[in-house]
């Protein structure tokens, strides 16, 4: 009896152990792969899911054909479905929601859609479905309908300005632009327009971005009114379009004042180059303001505002919060309005989208520039020992003067010192020497530099271009000993036992040459593209009778005898 009990209990214990083991093995967390739902062309359709209200849907979402409804209610107008307030149509749906909560919203949708469908069917008109499954279709459950954001760029802006002038004979920016006076107690009077203070809609109506205290107060009011950038721009644009559409139709301009979704949300965006010739809106901005911060240690900068206007798509790519000058919020020591960022960092922060240095760094990532600049670390105010020319390029201290340097030229080069072709023999045993077209490369770089206004301005002289490859060169020491600035002056052939991370000559060449070819998109000699034949062969011709083995120390006995081996320096005894 006792023995049986023991056996029974032991077996129970085993069972518990085994099940615990299995449990712990099979409950290891694993991530599931979620399939992205298929996207369809929008074609004036809208996916009604409202998951922010309903959460998880009981029935499939409704793919609503807005274009069809728009066509059907051409005569009746948009206010058949959308609510109206103070003569302006608000593009919300449904018209009225009596109570808060899921059921109330759901009922409002159902009432408005189905009532209308029923009504028209009783009048023997062609109409939409009234049964659940005809709108909530199972097969449309996973479809995504997404419209690309519309960009109101300077081309469109310019078109609107011109049309408006044609219509009313003068500039009236107040039709669209307004500002909100946060200190005004009477809310009906708070929305004002003052000439010269026009700004982008995004400043107040875009809620996603983090703003300073002043703007946050305004965005809070806008958020309370439900005027995010989507509803605000639909309300503003469409009401005006609806008002003038008829008039233009009569004139025969069919494309004017579009109201269909896909007419604005085309997904096509104009590039900076396409917008370059468009006249930027005039807001009394100076062409060449002199930026001189009081009590600052640096000399002032004459800033070519006009040429920078042409190189940006929007004003807010630099003026990120208001269209004021930078120093209104960013002072020498930093103010709360400027988020504590001082004026030096506001101009020099390397990774900001709005600072001078940040934007210039972005520019340096372009194909033409990245060949050299990819290897040159970004500089900001904290960079140690910058060259004098680096700072004085902007900080000239000369008011209203921008001295453009002469385009570079290779004419004055000493042909004896600057070789036309350099032979590199590092991999001599395995390959024939590589021929490096030194002078051709200089010519190419000079051309690239001269083609760009920014490069011409900042490169200054030919020496700057040399530093693209001959980086951190010990120019002074080399000049004293009269040795050419070769890579091997610093990069050793073998691994450095003290510092295994130090770039050896072989990788210095490969990384510098191939890195530049990669970044500049030069197919020959780049690392990523496979051309027909030998990729290595573009630079290295295979040597006949060269060694077949590439590892230096294959035989371990040799290594044992080799007492000065490299790893002995750091390997634990």
């Amino acid at each position, binding site marked *: 009896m*006792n023995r049986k*009990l*023991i056996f029974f*209990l*032991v077996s129970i*214990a085993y069972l518990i*152990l085994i099940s*615990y*083991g299995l449990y*712990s*093995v099979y409950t*290891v*967390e*694993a*991530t599931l792969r979620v399939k992205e739902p298929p996207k369809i062309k929008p074609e004036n359709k809208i996916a009604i899911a409202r998951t922010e209200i309903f959460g998880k849907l009981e029935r499939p979402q409704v793919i609503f054909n807005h274009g069809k409804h728009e066509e059907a209610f051409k005569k009746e107008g948009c206010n058949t479905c959308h609510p109206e307030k103070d003569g302006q149509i608000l593009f919300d749906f449904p018209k009225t929601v009596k109570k808060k909560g899921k059921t109330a919203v759901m009922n409002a949708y159902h009432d408005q859609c189905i009532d209308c469908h029923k009504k028209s069917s009783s009048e023997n008109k062609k109409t939409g479905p009234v049964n659940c499954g005809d709108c909530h279709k199972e097969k449309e459950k996973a479809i995504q309908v997404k419209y690309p954001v519309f960009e109101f760029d300077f081309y469109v802006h310019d078109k609107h300005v011109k049309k408006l002038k044609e219509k009313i004979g003068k500039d009236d920016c107040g039709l669209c632009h307004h500002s909100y006076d946060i200190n005004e107690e009477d809310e009906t009077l708070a929305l004002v327009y003052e000439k010269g203070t026009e700004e982008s809609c995004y400043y107040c109506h875009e809620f996603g971005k983090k703003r300073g205290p002043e703007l946050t107060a305004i965005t809070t009011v806008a958020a309370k009114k439900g005027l995010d950038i989507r509803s605000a721009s639909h309300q503003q644009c469409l009401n005006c379009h609806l008002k003038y559409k008829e008039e233009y139709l009569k004139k025969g301009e069919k494309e004017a004042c579009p109201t269909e979704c896909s007419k604005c949300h085309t997904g096509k965006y104009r590039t900076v180059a396409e917008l370059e010739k468009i006249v930027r809106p005039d807001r009394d901005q100076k062409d060449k303001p002199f930026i001189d911060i009081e009590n600052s240690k640096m000399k002032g900068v004459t800033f070519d505002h006009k040429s920078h206007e042409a190189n940006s798509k929007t004003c807010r790519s630099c003026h990120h919060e208001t269209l004021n000058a930078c120093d209104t919020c960013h002072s020498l020591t930093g103010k709360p309005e400027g988020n504590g960022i001082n004026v030096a960092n506001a101009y020099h922060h390397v*990774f900001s989208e709005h600072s001078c240095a940040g934007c210039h760094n972005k520019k340096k*990532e372009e194909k033409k520039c990245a060949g050299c600049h990819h290897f040159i*670390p970004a500089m900001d105010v904290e960079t140690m020992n910058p060259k004098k020319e680096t700072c004085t390029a902007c900080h000239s201290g000369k008011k209203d003067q921008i001295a453009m340097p002469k385009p570079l030229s290779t004419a004055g080069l000493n042909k004896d010192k600057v070789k036309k072709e350099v032979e590199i023999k590092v991999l001599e045993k395995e390959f024939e020497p590589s021929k490096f077209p030194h002078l051709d490369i200089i010519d190419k770089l000079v051309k690239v530099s001269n083609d760009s206004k920014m490069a011409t301005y900042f490169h200054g002289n030919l020496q700057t271009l040399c530093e693209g490859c001959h980086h951190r060169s010990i120019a002074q020491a080399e000049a004293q000993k009269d040795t050419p600035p070769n890579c091997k002056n610093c990069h050793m052939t073998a*691994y450095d036992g003290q510092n*295994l*991370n130090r*770039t*050896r000559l*072989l*990788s210095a060449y*490969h*990384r510098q040459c*191939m890195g530049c070819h*990669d970044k500049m998109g030069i197919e020959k000699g780049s*690392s*990523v*593209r*496979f*051309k*027909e*034949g*030998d*990729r*290595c*062969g573009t630079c290295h011709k295979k040597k006949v009778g060269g060694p077949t*083995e*590439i*590892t*230096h*120390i*294959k035989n*371990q006995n040799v*290594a*044992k005898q*080799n007492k000065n*081996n*490299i*790893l*002995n320096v750091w*390997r*634990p005894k």
Partner: protein
Amino acid sequence: MDRRNFLKIIGSGVAGAATGNLLTPGRTLAKEGTSAKELYGILVDTTRCIGCRRCELGCAEVNGLPIPDISESKNENLLKTIRKTSDAQYTIINRYETEKGTIFVPKRCMHCNQPGCVAACLVKAMRKRPSGHVTWDLNCIGCRLCMISCPFDIPKFEYNKAMPRIQKCNLCYDRYNNGVLPACVEVCPTQALMFGSRRQILDEGKRRIAANPDKYIEHIYGEYEVGGTSHLYISSVPFEQIGFRKDLGTVAYPEYSTGFLYAVPFIFVLWPIVMLGMNRATKKSKEDEGHHEEKGKH
């Protein structure tokens, strides 16, 4: 308790402890490595790799494997498929097309700090050396548990040989003992591979990321994955795009079974004692009952 019973219990206890230890050989072994002063490993900078496959060639030469053809015409076709390491190739290069262009990724044993393969090995053939190298010995019984337990699918079995062995990268352990760099590191023409102590290469990886925040994503693969590995990767695109598993978690694989395996010897030793105690406690009263019943019958 008589002598016979006592011996029985002691015997089963000892046997239990022994079996328990047999079931948990790797747990202690796997931790052996981390207690050493430095683990050595390789930092792989995938932005520097140019896919020349010289590391494959160097590896084959040093380990006596079939010499691969690394000519360009061959590479083009070969790199179209995503390959896995095999018993004849301890290291391979894969090509991935990503948002930031073509990226080559060298793949070899990750040399985990607490390797699953070492914990799984029944005969201690797979070992984590104090220097970080995960190596394989000839006393292998060919159970292939290491292959199942590896989260990176690295150990490979020589199925086509009469005396099959498990084959995988051993971070050139012999060369390390002789003070020479691993073959792949030695032959890399761009220094995409950096050999050094784990502390060193981790620092260097972090330095590169901090110096080029635009170039790299802020993640060193292998720093925390499966409890940390000696082979580290840095990349310009998220690691799932270049064929790395993101679902591995940061717990070392042996630790999943540690709790369970610790419990086994404990149960083996203590359970009989507890049961015996219960037995003794209940036995007397039952004997008494029997006695009373017998009395009643008389």
